[in-house]
């Protein structure tokens, strides 16, 4: 199987697996006062320091959660208070669901948030929490978050950044971005599923936890933390810093160029983009059909947002970009950290076969172009 669905989940990094296995050998609850408890606490705090260092916050401002969805939900719940919530049109469902009934910030055709609209919206002085993702999960398009943070701070608004897809695929530094909070997920960067983190700036408010429970995480997230999973998360984050992103980008570009020759159309900004992601539309061919046809070629890609039934729905991200019918005809190809040239060769061949069968006219046109 050629796995090109990193934005859904990444293969586990060997260093992460080693860290998990080592931590699983210990039997302590980090809240306990005895020796095993102290040992567990030490592993947890080591992981916290690693995550803080990797993503630009202080250790005491790192809250471990069950994953990215909970990190986003916690941020919105804790930072919102009496504030109005404004989210971009391309936010992930984790943000959309947590911030129900809110104003929406439009994006342009390239998939980048409209900062003029943001400034206009904040000009009324109403206290606001803005949610803007760092990189989009479907297109990989990187958002102008630092600029947005400047605008937000000028208007005394708060900014929460969903960096779940960005982490591990580009430098992510909360303090440098100037935002108030940042959500990260372990499995999106090659750690195990089951852990995530919400990082806060040193001036971020925190009204109340989503889950109070036993007061863990300095009272900001109840529940015994899964120490082994979190140890694997930290090891993966550290390992990801050493990734050769230029290598991944070159492989992505090769795949993309070949797909365009076969009739594919790249959706979104190609400059401000994660190196591992491309969103490829094949005009007049339903995205679901493309995903199935490639799966039968043993190539794993995805389309839109799959709901729990597995049905593929038209992408709200691409629709917000004004792509019309193409929104239902685009697949997401996202390269994991361990993608090989052989994987890309197989994708190129499989994509050409698929396009040739589903859309012979496009292939002919592409060849002539």
């Amino acid at each position, binding site marked *: 199987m050629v796995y090109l669905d990193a934005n859904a989940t990444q293969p586990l990094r060997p260093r992460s697996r080693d860290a998990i296995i080592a931590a699983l050998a210990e039997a302590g609850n980090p809240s306990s006062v005895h020796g095993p408890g102290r040992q567990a606490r030490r592993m947890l705090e080591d992981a916290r320091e690693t995550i803080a260092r990797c993503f630009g916050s202080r250790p005491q401002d790192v809250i471990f959660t069950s994953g990215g969805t909970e990190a986003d939900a916690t941020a919105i719940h804790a930072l919102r208070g009496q504030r109005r919530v404004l989210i971009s049109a391309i936010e992930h469902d984790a943000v959309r669901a947590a911030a129900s009934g809110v104003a929406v910030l439009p994006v342009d055709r390239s998939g980048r948030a409209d900062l003029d609209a943001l400034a206009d919206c904040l000009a009324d002085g109403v206290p606001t929490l803005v949610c803007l993702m760092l990189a989009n999960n479907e297109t990989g398009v990187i958002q102008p978050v630092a600029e947005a943070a400047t605008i937000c701070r000028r208007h005394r608004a708060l900014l929460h950044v969903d960096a779940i897809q960005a982490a591990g695929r580009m430098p992510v530094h909360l303090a440098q971005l100037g935002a108030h909070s940042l959500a990260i997920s372990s499995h999106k960067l090659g750690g195990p599923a089951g852990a995530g983190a919400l990082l806060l700036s040193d001036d971020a408010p925190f009204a109340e936890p989503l889950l109070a429970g036993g007061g863990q995480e300095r009272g900001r997230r109840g529940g015994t933390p899964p120490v082994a999973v979190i140890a694997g998360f930290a090891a993966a984050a550290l390992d990801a810093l050493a990734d050769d992103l230029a290598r991944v980008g070159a492989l992505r570009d090769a795949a993309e160029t070949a797909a365009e020759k076969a009739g594919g159309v790249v959706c979104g900004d190609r400059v401000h983009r994660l190196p591992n992601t491309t969103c490829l539309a094949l005009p007049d061919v339903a995205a679901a059909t493309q995903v*199935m046809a490639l799966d*039968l070629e043993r190539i794993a890609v995805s389309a839109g947002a799959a709901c729990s*039934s597995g049905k593929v729905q038209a992408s709200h991200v691409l629709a917000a970009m004004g792509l019309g019918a193409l929104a239902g005809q685009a697949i997401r190809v996202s390269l994991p950290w361990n993608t090989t040239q052989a994987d890309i060769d197989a994708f190129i061949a499989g994509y050409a076969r698929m396009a040739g*069968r*589903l859309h012979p006219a496009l292939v002919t046109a592409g060849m002539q172009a």
Partner: protein
Amino acid sequence: MRIVVAMSGGVDSSVVAGLLHEAGHEVIGVTLQLYDHGAAAARKGACCAGQDIYDARRVADTLGIPHYVIDAEKRFAAAVIADFADAYASGETPVPCIRCNETVKFSDLTALARDLGAERLATGHYVRRIDGPGGPELHRASDPARDQSWFLFATTRAQLALCAFPLGDMPDKRQVRGIAHRLGLDVAEKPDSQDICFVPSGAYTDVVAKLRPDALLAGDIVAADGQVVGSHDGIARYTVGQGKRLGSAAMIGGQRQVVIATDPGRRRVIVGPRESGTRDIQLRQVNWLIEAPGEAIRCAVKLRAHEPPRSATVNSAEGTTIVQLDQPALPAPGQACVFYQGDRILGGGVITRSAARSVSNSLTTPAP
């Protein structure tokens, strides 16, 4: 052979997938999501997919075959559910399963099968495909109790060429369940699906009421001469041939009455003795599974899913198809009239309201 199997999550299509997989074919399971199950069951937060899609996935997991869910919600809502309500509002009695087979199921899945490079689309329908000298033919199932051929008359010849119906030769359902047990499928004892899939509560009028409340407005029940003989609570509750729900109009002059027509414009239900009827039926949306005949043909026709065939002559000329029954009957507009020759399905069409014209004309404009 690469074969797409339409899997509903029920025992029949699960067994089809299992048998074809066992025979060594490359089986691809596909389930159409036709409606939002959570919304249909009026359970807030319930998954849109519901138990049937879950069951289909688990069967595919058990067999070790790929399985995909296709979103056909929007088109099903427009082509089947809205049409269902509109038909009732216009005084017809629709058959949503035929409409779905015609507009969603077979069109989507045969197209998908081709797109995926499959050589066959297999379904769990009880009907037989027999390859004759003139190409593939559609025949009744071996088990008359299970035969679903009436619901499949609208399958086009191009679609039929791609279709396989492995259960058409099964002697009975018990054998199908036996195979499911042998294959270790959890759905082996799952009850047969009932009624209309998008009406889980069984009250089809709830669906009609939501989309076409006008079809459930009260009105008069009138006799053949136009005289008001009772009242009704919505023409959507009545179908031609029905003897129930007539209240005081059920018996007139010592004769049991049935619905012989509806008049949606005046919100009237028209009753008459069961013996009244028509010989001529005009059809629309006619589909032929043989070369469209240039002349009248003698055959048997079935006017309802569960009713014995009747002898008739089918005249098809210049886009108009008229069926002449040997004996008068009470065909219900919106239902199908399917043509048979022995076990073979020749074609069929949808019964139009003008079928009842000979009756209703004399009713709505009483002779001076």
